[in-house]
């Protein structure tokens, strides 16, 4: 089948149905002014399936009634934009905060949840920082759990394999030399780095958080794809996963203000939010 170079045509009905599928499965919305993303993101899938248009794709989605094609459509539409050491100053501050939390609770390991980790660059960046002495002498590296809604992104994260373009975004060459090996044109994270992270599939809008309480939750550049109502719901899930006084780290431009009273801005670490303590038994040093 021949495909023209221009994007395949799609009726507004098809676009609406595909948008609705994405929102139903993940809570993510595609703004009307970004509807072009649907055609762009699905073009490779149309080609792979031998379909000429989004209308044909929708017809097949309705006809097959199996989850596989729907999963593939949703995976293709998810924005998996990420890079190593994204907003590096935030990660440095996070290491300081983690060190302080660990000093407060030497009897157990600090636990960090990297939610919406996409293809794994965020948790890998954290693992590198902590392994390179970020915790200081005598303090154990924290436990890192990383989740994403996309099975395809998680498969890539677990493999820790990155293209030449991906490996060069944000990652200093000395760290690349320490933590990655060349792998046939790609770059593969060393097993000892990957072992520091537990990857799990989790849908922030539908699934329970990973088991156990966390001291720090990162949810950066995820909420911006959700409606206000879904953000409120997700804040509830994040709050339930945090220990009282634990820290929430959002992306630049994301805020809890006006959406939830379960978090307050953290006095000590600017830009971080602190889970409201319901019991006075243990006060965090972060104010």
């Amino acid at each position: 089948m021949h495909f023209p170079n221009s994007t395949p045509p799609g009726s507004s009905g098809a676009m609406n149905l595909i948008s609705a599928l994405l929102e139903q499965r993940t809570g993510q919305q595609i703004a009307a002014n970004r509807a072009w993303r649907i055609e762009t993101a699905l073009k490779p899938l149309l080609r792979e399936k031998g379909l000429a248009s989004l209308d044909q794709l929708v017809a097949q989605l309705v006809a097959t009634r199996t989850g596989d094609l729907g999963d593939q459509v949703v995976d293709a539409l998810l924005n998996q934009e990420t890079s190593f050491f994204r907003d590096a100053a935030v990660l440095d501050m996070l290491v300081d905060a983690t060190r302080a939390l660990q000093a407060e609770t030497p009897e157990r390991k600090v636990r960090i949840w990297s939610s919406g980790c996409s293809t794994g660059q965020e948790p890998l960046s954290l693992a590198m920082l902590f392994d390179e002495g970020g915790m200081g002498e005598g303090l154990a590296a924290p436990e890192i759990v990383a989740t994403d809604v996309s099975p395809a992104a998680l498969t890539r994260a677990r493999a820790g394999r990155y293209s030449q373009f991906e490996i060069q975004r944000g990652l200093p060459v000395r760290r690349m030399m320490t933590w990655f090996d060349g792998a046939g044109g790609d770059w593969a994270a060393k097993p000892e780095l990957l072992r520091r992270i537990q990857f799990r599939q989790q849908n922030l809008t539908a699934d329970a958080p990973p088991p156990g309480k966390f001291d720090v939750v990162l949810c950066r550049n995820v909420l911006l794809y959700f409606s206000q109502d879904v953000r409120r719901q997700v804040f509830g899930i994040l709050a339930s996963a945090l220990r009282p006084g634990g820290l929430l780290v959002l992306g630049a431009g994301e805020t809890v203000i006006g959406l939830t009273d379960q978090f307050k801005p953290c006095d000590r670490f600017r830009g971080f939010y602190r889970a409201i303590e319901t019991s006075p038994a243990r006060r965090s040093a972060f104010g």
Partner: protein
Amino acid sequence: MKTCLVVDDSKVIRKVARHILETLDFEVREAGDGREALDSCMAATPDVVLLDWNMPVMSGMDFLRALKDSGLPQRPKVVFCTTENGMAYIRAAIEAGADEYVMKPFDRETLESKLQIVGVA
């Protein structure tokens, strides 16, 4: 405005790099080999040198060694930018004093990221 010296024997690569660097607010100078680059550095030290490996007259590695011995009071940051993408090459460049390493082909994000890492963008 920061200055970047683009050192590459390919006019096309110099043109592409210049375009990207100018959008990143750099003043751009060009050199076609290591010798020209060294002369340019001696005349006025740039903030950063984007350096190819394989060039006629003087290679990138020879330039790096000569720069070290040049007695310049303030050495520019040096970012290798080359098709030599193996770990052995990367290690050799860093051990010889390069600050960062860009594997060709590169795009705007890659270049901007590496220039941020060396503190000039």
